[in-house]
């Protein structure tokens, strides 16, 4: 199994940390992982994206043109990455702030209203965990228990009290992805 994912959105949406938790979860179940961010000035406020690969084998290129899954969290990223999902692949997006919705019919498109659900849960910071939950429902590349282990490993101890909140967000995300069919 090799899963090649791009996660893209605004800086501050938790794009990089979502990728990091996913990668750590892969390690927890003895898989090979890579996490390759776009880095540089754009990190500071602009768009942010990270390529995460989880595999049972040695990982080749950490930088890719085409992905099994794209997780898209803003319009710029939609414009850039919709065309770069492999045929038969998956595009998961949050419709919040999206004006031009995806149009491809050779891939499966899912929506998760992460921003709305996070607001309903009273904590916008768990937005990324809701999206991650939705993704893991669609493609269970890592087990939920290993995500929790990954969270424990990647968060400093003083933040461990936040893990139940994150777990609730993951569960919320798992309950809510909806298939979206372009008109």
């Amino acid at each position, binding site marked *: 199994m090799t899963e090649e994912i791009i996660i893209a959105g605004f800086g501050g949406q938790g794009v990089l940390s979502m990728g*990091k938790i996913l*990668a*750590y979860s*892969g*390690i927890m179940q003895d898989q*090979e*992982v*890579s*996490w*390759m*961010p776009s*880095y*540089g000035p754009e990190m500071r406020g602009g768009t942010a994206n990270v390529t995460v690969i989880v595999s049972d084998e040695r*990982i*080749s*290129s*950490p*930088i*890719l*043109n*085409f992905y099994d899954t794209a997780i898209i969290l803003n319009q710029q990223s939609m414009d850039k990455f919709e065309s770069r999902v492999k045929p038969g692949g998956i595009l998961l997006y949050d419709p919040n702030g999206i004006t031009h919705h995806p149009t491809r019919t050779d891939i499966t498109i899912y929506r998760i209203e992460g921003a709305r659900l996070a607001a309903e849960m009273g904590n916008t910071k768990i937005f990324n965990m809701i999206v991650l939950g939705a993704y893991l429902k669609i493609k269970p590349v890592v087990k939920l228990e290993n995500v929790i282990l990954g969270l424990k*490993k*990647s968060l400093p101890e003083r933040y461990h009290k936040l893990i139940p909140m994150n777990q609730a967000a993951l569960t919320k995300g798992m309950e809510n992805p909806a298939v979206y069919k372009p008109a």
Partner: protein
Amino acid sequence: MGELKLMKGNEAIAEAAIRAGVDAYFGYPITPQSEVLEYLMQEQPEERTGMVVLQAESELAAINMVYGAASTGKKVMTTSSSPGISLYQEGISYIAGAELPCVIANVVRGGPGLGTIQPSQADYFQATKGGGHGDYKLYVLAPASVQEMADFVEDGFNIAYKYRNPVMILTDGMIGQMMEKVELKDQKPRWTDEEIKKMSDSWATIGKGNHRERNIITSLDLDSAKQEKHNHHLQKKYRQMEEEDVRFEEINCDDADYLIVAYGSSSRIAMKTLNLARAKGIRVGLFRPITLYPFPMKALNKYIGQVKGILSVEMSAGQLIEDIMLAVECKINVQHFGRYGGMIHSPDEVLQALETLINGGNNGR
């Protein structure tokens, strides 16, 4: 099995330094490798192992602090990125001339000049052909994963002390900034002063006792005949490295009609190309030099008669290709492909270039 962690390449090199029992690190901030110094400061290695970490006032000072500490037989390392490494060159030449062991990592970014902060492999010539003034060589290791970033610290020191020669870890912003699973080795104790004395009392400046003449660390000899003799001695070391310490990796090369030769980040990208090409029925192998100096000349030379073409894939305008051409005595059609200036080629672009080569086309060189 050591501790498993998800780490950036830059963090791995820093953690590996602490665990390898390194005595001192001197550095100066520069993107994309500032995480090394940041990580070390965060970790407080002075308390963990007694390792000294100091942010110097400049790269000029940092490399000369390395020179000073290495002069006393201590395990010392530094890291920087391309413009900073250019400033290091004076010190590196002195270190090579004075025969001091140390490890220097260059997390390469696009150039020339201030360039970009994105990954590049354009410092290949500088690393492998000298870089500073005079006839000297660095032993150059090119990691292709975060794991190798960690492992090459200790490997580097082993070579540095075997030859009393500076070792460079030549990597780039891609490996430096990406995170992968890394297995960390257990903590090694730092050498005691007694151990260092036993090992290095014949040359290190640790204080002249009555038992020996004074030790002098210098690269100066105003007598040209003596300077030539010293150069002969240095060259002998480099020949020995070429005999004993060449490293490379071959993937799917046995039945290959074509080879991609690539190191570090480019070799990772090329691995993906390999999969794509093999799926299309192209018999291509990947030859990855792990030591860029000494370059695996003999290993590559063996492909004369076997392969019909070689694609040199590098994030530079064509530097590695010159060593490949030397290795195969220009008897194989060698072409260059690569993005540069901070751009990274994709596996698909590399595949396209490979197909151009196979179809008798020319990739521009």
